[in-house]
Every structure is written in structure tokens, then in C-alpha cells.
């Protein structure tokens, strides 16, 4: 399964609006996508999961995707997280 390590750029980390943006973008792909932060792993399409990660600014998270559009999904979500 392809993975991508990304540093969260948004100044308040994966707070409500950045988390919502991530989930909205993830929902556009058919691939199964997860976000890992420390020992927590979230379904990238679940806002409750993503908010529960507690990933602040500069936190490193790992995106993983599996499915036909996995690489495209990783490219897009990496941009969402790294652009702040």
C-alpha cells in the first residue's frame, strides 16, 4: 500500500476546518485512505476519526491509500496537508 509522510502546515494543525477540508477531498477518491499520527490511525473519510488524531501544526502524519486512484489521492491529500 503506497504511503506518504507529510508535515501538517496549517497554523492550528488538523483543527475543524483543515480536518473538514481533508475529509472532503478524501471523499472524492474511491481508494481506502488512512491518516496515521503517532499510535492513532484515522479513516481519512471520517471527520470524527480525523479530529480525534490531535495533529497540531508541524506534526508528521502518514497518509496511506489502497485502490485504483491511490496515488492520485495521496498527491491531492499531501497538498491539502502541506499547503496549510
Amino acid at each position, binding site marked *: 500500500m503506497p504511503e506518504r509522510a507529510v508535515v501538517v502546515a496549517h*497554523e*492550528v*494543525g*488538523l*483543527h*475543524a*476546518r483543515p*480536518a*473538514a477540508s481533508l*475529509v*472532503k477531498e478524501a*471523499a472524492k477518491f474511491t481508494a481506502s485512505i488512512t491518516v496515521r499520527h503517532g499510535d492513532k490511525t484515522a479513516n481519512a473519510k471520517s*471527520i*470524527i476519526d*480525523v*479530529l*480525534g*488524531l*490531535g*495533529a*497540531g501544526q508541524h506534526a508528521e502524519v502518514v497518509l496511506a491509500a489502497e485502490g485504483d486512484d491511490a496515488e492520485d489521492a495521496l498527491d491531492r491529500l499531501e497538498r491539502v496537508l502541506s499547503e496549510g
Partner: protein
Amino acid sequence: MTDQSEDDAATPAPAAPAATASPEAGPCRPELVLSRLEAGSWQEVLTAMAELAERSGFGAPTLRDALLAREETSPTGLPTVIPVAIPHADAEHVRRFGLAVALLDRPVRFGEMGTDDNQVDVRAVFMPLIPDADKQVGFLMSMIGMLKDGSWADAIQDQDPNTIADRVNDLLGQQGAG
């Protein structure tokens, strides 16, 4: 001509924060709790909670408009086991750290966070008031930990504001916040 004392009397003084809980008690204070709010829309819910926060010294006068504007563009309803909403505003609209809670008399429809047009019928609203932006993510994580499985509802339904505040603080403490 009106003398100064009459002018002062005609101007509602900001409510002093109630001394019903010690500063160590946790972010949820009885004066921030609406134990059975009747509201017909999310706008009414947010207005009631913002006015309560302002009267209690936790919210700035700009809080209400900031909440309404943000909820309009970035809805905060969550499809948790018992649906909740977690409206919030930027730190500049908050005066003191706290958590306002409203248990709704009947469900109120909010937009669902992370979707373009889904809606959820919300039963309770938890409004973090965080004047320090750096603390928002950690507090939100604790709040989600408390809210996601629905067991919080048994602890606080049909209780008075003091009990609700105490139990919410206990539940948040179990998640590492408070």
C-alpha cells in the same frame, strides 16, 4: 440633562463571572450550561450560547456574529452516535477558556462537518471557548474522545447545570483535558 449615574444605570453592566466553580474545576462551568434549550434553528442555538458566554465573561461581544458566520461556511454538526455540533470561533472572539454546553429540547438540524450538503439532527451542542489558538487541536481531540461513543449522554441528561458541568469536566479529564 441626564447625570452620569443615570447613564451608567441604563447601561447593562457586563455580568461578572459566577464564582460557582473553582478555576481548577475544568473548562465547563455551570454558568455556561443550558440544560434544556428550546430552539428552532442552529442560528437560535448559537445566539443563545454566545449571549450566555458573553454575559458570563467568557465571550467577546463579537462572538455571536463570528460563530454565525463560521457555522454558515464551515458547519460543525457531527454524525456521532448521539449527533452533536461543536461550533467555535477564532481566539480573538474569546475572553476566557471555557466550554459551553447546550442540551437541546428537540433536535436541531446542523450542516455536517466535512461534507458539502449533508445535515445532522443535533441533540447537544458543545462550544469550546479557547483564547489560545495553540490549545485548540488538543482540546478538540479530548472533546471528540468524549463525544464519539455517546456514553456522555447518560451522565448529563436531565441534570442541573452544576451537575452537568461537573460530569463534563470529569469526562474530559478522562480524555486528558480539563
